[in-house]
């Protein structure tokens, strides 16, 4: 008698398999169908079948292998029955090799298929928005509706974006392949960018009342871990995973019990996730050995300095300013310059910080950026230039739509003397 499982156990196993195995199952099925839509259809069908099959036959030892076999079998069936219309559809370009062995183990040659899928979703010839959408949809198995919600667009808009990207993949013949050695660094950088964007979108939702959209940050962490498994020698990938871990480690303390934003200075550092920090620190060490040092590695190193300080007061600000200098050299973005200016304010005092922030006032990319005004306001408050601080807080409020951040700024404004 096969073990019987309650529906709750099956649902849990299925949800787990969805999160862990979706990319694996889909990537292996695409090798059979050479058509993303058909592969998605077959994988969805396999997950639907699992719901009943696992309830009667028991949860398989290797759910990923079960799902892959089921999805591939369905794909072969569909292909055999395929009408002419389907056969005339342009196929995804693959290396002309067999679609991989029957899946019996989780690792092995098929593991590569996930890399193919990643590089296809994050191909630079696709619009960045589409890269993110495809990644969520094909690698994480998120529904179009959820993907649309995550990026604050309507479902039809997201569906159109995904359809258009899939059409370009076949129409322009974007290959389902791991790029060649000469292109790999640039292409990995593109993949890292997509994962980082997912994380930051979840970490600080630009609009809305939940500061951390857990779903997105978790998916981004899963993807970064997957990349690290698939590309273990890549320093940039290690740097990215380190950055996500070291940032996410402080997740629990970013807001207080009432959901109000807490600054690094006010967070309870004993509540930080030690395991994540230790893992992140080890990864930073590995990544810093890579040359040239990448953008995410430097950002991770900055996060590491914060995470390593037992108290806010002992933060090594000089080191942070130095890291921002290096980061600005490899990634000369105005936002990096602003963060550097803020760090100067802590290293050398609020007057120096204010000077550094004001030097960026004419930066067109920072116009309309709430953090610039918020940083100015904070330095002015510490310099006891109250009237100017009040103006700057109001300006920051006008530019901030995140409710948690607004609440923080309002409290700071109300807390000014004579307020």
């Amino acid at each position, binding site marked *: 008698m096969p073990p019987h499982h309650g529906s709750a156990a099956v649902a849990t196993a299925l949800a787990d398999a969805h999160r862990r195995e979706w990319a694996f199952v889909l990537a292996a099925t695409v090798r059979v169908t050479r058509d993303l839509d058909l592969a998605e259809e077959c994988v969805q069908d396999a997950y639907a079948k699992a719901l009943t099959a696992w309830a009667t036959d028991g949860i398989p030892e290797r759910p990923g292998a079960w799902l892959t076999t089921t999805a591939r079998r369905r794909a072969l069936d569909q292909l055999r029955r395929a009408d002419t219309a389907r056969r*005339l559809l342009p196929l995804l*370009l693959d290396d002309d090799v067999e679609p991989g062995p029957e899946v019996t183990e989780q690792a092995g040659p098929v593991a590569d298929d996930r890399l193919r899928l990643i590089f296809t979703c994050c*191909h630079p*010839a696709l619009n960045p928005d589409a890269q993110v959408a495809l990644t969520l949809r094909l690698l994480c198995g998120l529904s179009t509706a959820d993907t649309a919600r995550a990026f604050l667009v309507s479902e039809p808009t997201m569906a159109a974006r995904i359809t258009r990207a899939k059409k370009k993949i076949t*129409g*322009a*013949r*974007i*290959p389902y*392949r791991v*790029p*060649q050695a000469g*292109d790999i660094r640039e292409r990995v950088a593109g993949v890292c960018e997509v994962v980082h964007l997912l994380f930051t979108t979840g970490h600080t939702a630009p609009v809305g009342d939940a500061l951390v959209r857990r779903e997105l940050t978790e998916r981004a962490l899963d993807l970064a871990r997957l990349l690290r498994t698939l590309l273990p020698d890549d320093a940039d990938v290690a740097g990215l995973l380190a950055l996500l871990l070291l940032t996410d480690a402080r997740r629990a303390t970013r807001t207080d019990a009432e959901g109000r934003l807490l600054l690094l200075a006010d967070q309870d550092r004993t509540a930080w996730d030690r395991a994540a920090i230790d893992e992140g620190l080890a990864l930073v060490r590995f990544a810093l050995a890579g040359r040239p040092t990448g953008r995410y590695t430097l950002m991770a190193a900055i996060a590491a300095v914060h995470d390593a300080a037992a108290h806010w007061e002992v933060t090594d600000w000089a080191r942070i300013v130095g890291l921002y200098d290096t980061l600005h050299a490899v990634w000369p973005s105005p936002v990096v310059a602003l963060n550097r200016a803020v760090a100067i304010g802590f290293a050398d005092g609020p007057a120096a910080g204010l000077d550094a922030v004001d030097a960026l006032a004419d930066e067109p990319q920072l116009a309309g950026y709430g953090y610039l005004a918020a940083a100015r306001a904070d330095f002015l408050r510490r310099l006891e230039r109250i009237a100017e601080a009040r103006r700057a807080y109001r300006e920051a409020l006008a530019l901030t739509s995140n409710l948690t951040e607004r609440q923080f700024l309002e409290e700071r404004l109300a807390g000014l003397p004579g307020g």
Partner: protein
Amino acid sequence: MAEYLVLIYEDEAGWEQGGAEAWAQGMKDHMAFGEANGAAIKGGNALQPTGTATSIRSNGTVVTDGPFAETKEALGGYYLIEAPDLDAAIAIAKQVPHRFGGVEVRPVMVFDQS
């Protein structure tokens, strides 16, 4: 294998200001590109400047002087190349000389004959 059209968009002012030196260099660059990628190149041409262009709109009734769209970088030439996939096409297109602008890669539409 598939065919891609690589369209070269450049600022014509660059060529005008560059004079004979720019022309000689451009000629040399394109010759070198042709030698390096001979097997993949199915065709190609340089076009006369947009000052010579004539556009026809509204069902062929309105004939106007000038290119279809006035842009800083104008279509000035093209290569028709053959490549197994977009990555290979991009690798070739990156080598197409484009010192006063850039190139656009477009897959050629295939019509099924069966």
